[in-house]
């Protein structure tokens, strides 16, 4: 068969010259696609080193509080001036749920208020940037054990007096941001963050300073209205929040007056 008269029919043997050219084309195409894939990998912006100990159960003992959000206060001993140092572990539920419903359900079952009681909690730790979260294990009975029936500690009054602030940053859902999802910020994560915050996970505000360091604020409503519902239209956007800041142990709490978008 003359080279120029070669004709490919799928169910017949491939003509030799066509086969030769085809091999070159397929190899070149494969190389181009794989090199493009490697380029796409290498050009990613990078990921946080947050950790989610998925599948690993950790048991923690501390004092349970729901003010301003569900947290477990763990006594880390006294500091040089003799004051108790508390580490606050934020509590969240399984999946895209907050811990509040779960704790209320447990209180009902146990017939006792768990507020300010010493408890053992089991769950999976999530931690990043010096902050820790505990995802309560989805085994309803095993995840909480009452150690003491008396109130062991009260959430201290705000350590600092409220300070009026105007902060620029992004509203995040802390469960994803601190380690469950990567990336846990920005537009690609917006839907997930909205779902998490709708499900009761307490919203937080991430503020990055000029040095690139992040500060995190627990968001709180000025009145009894739900902060979760209020922040939903602003999640994952760059916003300015006017409000006042208090410090509760090792967390800052930002009481929100006004949220303003800074980007379209």
């Amino acid at each position, binding site marked *: 068969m003359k080279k120029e*008269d070669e*004709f*490919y*029919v*799928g*169910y*017949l*043997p*491939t003509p030799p010259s*066509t086969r030769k*050219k*085809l091999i070159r*084309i*397929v190899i070149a*195409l*494969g190389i181009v*696609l*794989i090199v*493009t*894939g*490697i*380029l*796409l*990998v*290498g*050009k*990613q*912006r*990078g*990921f*946080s*080193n*947050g950790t*989610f100990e998925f599948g690993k159960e950790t048991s923690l003992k501390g004092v349970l509080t729901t003010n301003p959000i569900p947290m477990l206060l763990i006594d880390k001993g006294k500091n040089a001036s003799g004051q108790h140092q508390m580490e606050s572990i934020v509590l969240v539920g*399984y*999946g*895209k*749920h907050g811990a509040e419903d779960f704790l209320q359900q447990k209180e009902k079952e146990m017939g006792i208020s768990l507020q300010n009681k010493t408890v053992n909690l089991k769950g999976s730790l999530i931690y990043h940037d010096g902050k820790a979260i505990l995802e309560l294990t989805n085994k309803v009975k095993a995840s909480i054990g009452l150690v003491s029936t008396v109130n062991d500690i009260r959430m201290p009054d705000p350590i600092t007096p409220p300070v009026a602030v105007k902060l620029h940053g992004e509203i995040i859902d802390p469960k994803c941001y601190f380690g469950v*999802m*990567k*990336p846990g*910020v*920005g*537009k*690609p*994560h*917006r*839907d*997930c963050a*909205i*779902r*998490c915050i*709708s*499900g*009761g996970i307490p919203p937080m505000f991430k503020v990055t300073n000029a040095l690139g360091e992040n500060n995190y604020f627990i968001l709180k409503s000025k009145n009894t209205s739900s902060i979760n519902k209020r922040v939903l239209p602003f999640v994952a*956007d760059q916003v300015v929040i006017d409000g006042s800041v208090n410090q509760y142990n090792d967390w800052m709490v930002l009481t929100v007056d006004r949220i303003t978008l800074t*980007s*379209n």
Partner: protein
Amino acid sequence: MSIAYTSVSWNTNKKIYDGILLGFVLTYLSIFICACLIIYPEITIETTLIRATSTLAFLLLHVILSIGPLARLNKIFLPLLYNRRHLGVTMFLIALVHGTFSIFQFHALGNISPLVSVLSSNTHYTSFIKFPFQSLGLLALIILSCMAASSHDFWLNQLSPKIWKILHMGVYIAYGLLVMHVLLGVIQLEHSPAYFILLAFGVCWVSTLHVLAAWKENKRDSEKSTPSADGFIQVCDVSEIPENRAKVVTGLKERIAIFKYQGKLSAVSNVCKHQNGPLGEGKIIDGCITCPWHGYQYLPHNGKAPAPFKEKVATYNLRLTGTKIWLDPKPNEEGAEVMPLDLHL
């Protein structure tokens, strides 16, 4: 060609095609995942899988969309077109893994159904920049699933080639949706301009190929002769048609293929009944016009597929004046017998 429906009519070339495709898919995923885990040890496996499958499916979609015009521009790409349906279904399955994984990751275990969540979590439907890009991906996935589900020849025959072709043109809508899915999604997070540049290059590449292929065909379509009193149009000289090949001309509306074979001339519709392939770019093999796309065959003198096959295309009347070929652009019925012009007379 097959008269009975089987899931896949395997032959050596299809097996080689699918083997290479599977090998490539596994190689790409392995390299992408390993590179991610090495360069970014802090990445989660979920993100790695979501990104590996999304990039692979999107790259394969570019290849799929390029094969058609490339095959029109250069015959060497025709073998890639032969089994393009398997490539399309493979791309859809990879996209399905990406979509399923993403919906589970971002929407499952919440307080509403994951599918409802995809459409209702981000409600900025009136904003371009904030537009819920995941809903665009879901819509594209639905279109691709319709195409994958109807890709078999059974559906081609049930729906008719015309309807089937229209349905499968939905790939361009899906492509547009996916371009926006990427543009309004991950590109808004990534800092590197490489993502935007690659996306723009991909869109330009696909568009340019289609424009070039269309320009080539339009150029041929615009070559029209003035009809004679009896309606015949002068087409070309006999010497312009190679043996066992055809010249394609545009008649009233349809393209017509005039074949020269064994000292004879016959004219049939240029449109294959299988997938509207260009018969005029085919060849006479074993006395039959053979479509360059999937090898469907027709007898040149009556446009009928050889028994036991039943496809048939329209035939056309020809006339010879000296060495000039004249064509009546009015089609005969599909399968109508027309005595070939004998060049020896």
